[in-house]
């Protein structure tokens, strides 16, 4: 393979340079253009006259944006904690060499293969109070059973959390399980010899050694939170009211249907800023130590 590549006059540095050029233009170029647009009064068609931070002022007096940001925090916290806890628990159980491990692994990994749109639609049908779970249980005779979170403005956001955990827990399970399988068997022998209870062994010995693995999971999940869009569209469309609006949906809506390019760009810039704020400290503390 190497000799064949050499014969082709393969120049890795040129390939890398092209790659970086593409990234620079399409990625950083787009960011620059968006930040420029966020300083204009562009509506449907870009306008190039800079008017300052008007759009940002507009953005932070817009109730829907504020609700979107708050929703992202609520959703993010519950989703990440829930998915990590559930995924890790599944991984530990699978790691205990249970019977039919691969069968269960497939079952729990399967939701990840389902698109977020399908996930959202299925959960919407399941949670619809008049035709889903609630109606089913009531039909079986439990008349007072109520589970109408999907249609309650103060609870609808948690139905998104439930659906997302269902969707992502398998991913965390597989990544953590791979990490667990990589643990040196001598470590387990030592643990057994010392007679440390299993839960302490995991919490105080095994998991601290797996910080980079868990960090990868956190980064993956966090990006899901910030770009969360498909699931909301399929499941609640941001409703009831504006109870499940999120920043990415805000940006898309204002780009296209509300034809307010300036405000949507300002929202996008805030999302970028938010991502950096959330992820930078994490990358810093988790990945620097390994270098």
């Amino acid at each position, binding site marked *: 393979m190497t000799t064949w590549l050499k014969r082709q006059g393969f120049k890795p540095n040129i390939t890398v340079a092209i790659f970086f050029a593409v990234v620079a233009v399409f990625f950083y170029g787009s960011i620059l253009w968006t930040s420029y647009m966020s300083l204009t009064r562009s509506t*449907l068609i870009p306008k190039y006259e800079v008017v300052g931070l008007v759009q940002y002022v507009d953005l932070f007096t817009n109730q829907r944006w504020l609700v979107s940001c708050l929703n992202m925090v609520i959703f993010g916290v519950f989703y990440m904690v829930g998915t990590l806890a559930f995924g890790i628990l599944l991984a530990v159980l699978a790691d205990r060499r249970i019977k039919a491990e691969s069968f269960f692994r497939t079952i729990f990994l399967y939701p990840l293969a389902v698109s977020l749109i399908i996930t959202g639609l299925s959960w919407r049908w399941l949670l619809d109070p008049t*035709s889903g779970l609630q109606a089913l249980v009531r039909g079986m005779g439990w008349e007072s059973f109520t589970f109408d979170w999907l*249609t309650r403005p103060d609870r609808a956001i948690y139905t998104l959390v439930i659906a997302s955990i269902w969707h992502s827990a398998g991913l965390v399970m597989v990544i953590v399980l791979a990490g667990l399988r990589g643990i040196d068997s001598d470590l387990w022998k030592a643990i057994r010899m010392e007679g440390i209870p299993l839960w302490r062994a995991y919490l105080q010995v095994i998991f601290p050694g797996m910080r980079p693995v868990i960090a990868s999971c956190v980064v993956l999940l966090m990006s899901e939170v910030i770009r969360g869009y498909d699931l909301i569209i399929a499941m609640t469309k941001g409703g009831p009211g*504006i109870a499940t609006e999120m920043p990415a949906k805000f940006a898309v809506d*204002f*780009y*296209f*249907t509300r034809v307010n390019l300036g405000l949507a760009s300002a929202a996008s810039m805030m999302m970028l800023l938010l991502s950096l704020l959330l992820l930078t400290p994490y990358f810093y503390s988790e990945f620097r130590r390994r270098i």
Partner: protein
Amino acid sequence: MALFGLLAASTSAFGQTVDVQQYWNSASESKAMNTIADAYKARGGKWIDSPSADFDSAIAAATSRIAGGEPPSAVLMNPNAAMRDLASGQLRDFDDLAAKNGWQKAIAPIVWDKLNVDKHLVGLPVGIHADNWIWYSKSLFQAAGIDEPKTLDEMFAAADKLKAAGHTAFAVGGEPWQEVSILTSMIIALGGPEYWNELFIKRDPEALKSPLLPRAFELFRKVSTYTDPASPGRSWNETTNMVVTGKAGMQFMGDWARGEFLAAGQVAGKEFGCFLAPTDKPAYAIVVDIFAFPVNKDEDRIKGQTLLAETVMDPAVEAKLAAVKGSVPSRLDVDTSTLDLCAAKGVKALATPGVTVSSTYDALPGDLNGRMTDLATQFWTDPSMTVEAGVKGLADILQSK
């Protein structure tokens, strides 16, 4: 390869193609779109359908296609802020065809003004709807012994009777745009056309201080207490279907709802009835369906646009479309005598001077209508939000630009 080139060349030499970005999916709407498509194909054109799930996604698809340099040849939309924005160089104007065929004389002045931007005709009307209608089930009204309400009080009394009889009094689809039209229906019922124009067209700060507004918000909230638990997220045509099947008594909805009753084989005045939001100052808040034609470069597609323009403006097509869609024809010279009871009410309102006003969809600049929608849906779903907060929110929105 050469063969393909030849084929492509031969079709483009004779073809007249339109690529239509549209969102008419309900039973009556798709019949209406097929009416246009069939008439267009009968004239020898080739029709490419680009459907979207709803109005918002159709506009989103159209704008991104225009921005991406692959514009559709026609977009089904309203003469709203987005159209006025696109009109600065992105839309083809039809001044020449309008002059040749005398279109201006055939269209009511208030509609004509909406279709023109800087004196260029950039939108062609497909039909005229109005937003402030209420639809009801005749059988439920008869069973409960209710007559068609003539005042808002009578309407709520009717709602109480329906509720007592175990029905959903007001069928509401809990989507923001459906909710906001209940609020605007209340405002127009209480204030009439003059107040409406001061509030939404002139955006006079004095109009915002009127005691009408808090009252409108109160009544808006009152309607929300009559809805059913499955309301959130339900589409408008599913909701109309509740009235069609006698599960619910009334629905606030534009007269595109009439098309759904007709598609279910019902007859106005027999199975279903209609009235404008009850008031002593009659008003008719129109929403015009239009085709806008983004600038295309391909000769074949330009010819297609011309052919579609002529098809849409054909009085025969307009009449046929109005009959299935529930709209009133946008041309004044179309025979309306065959239209039903409800359409006749619409035609009469349109013909009465001073009654017709522009709906907020079309009239408000920029994203103000969208922001008002956000406010209305928030007020609707959050009972803890006060009427004062609602009025203040509306004032902030209307005065922001």
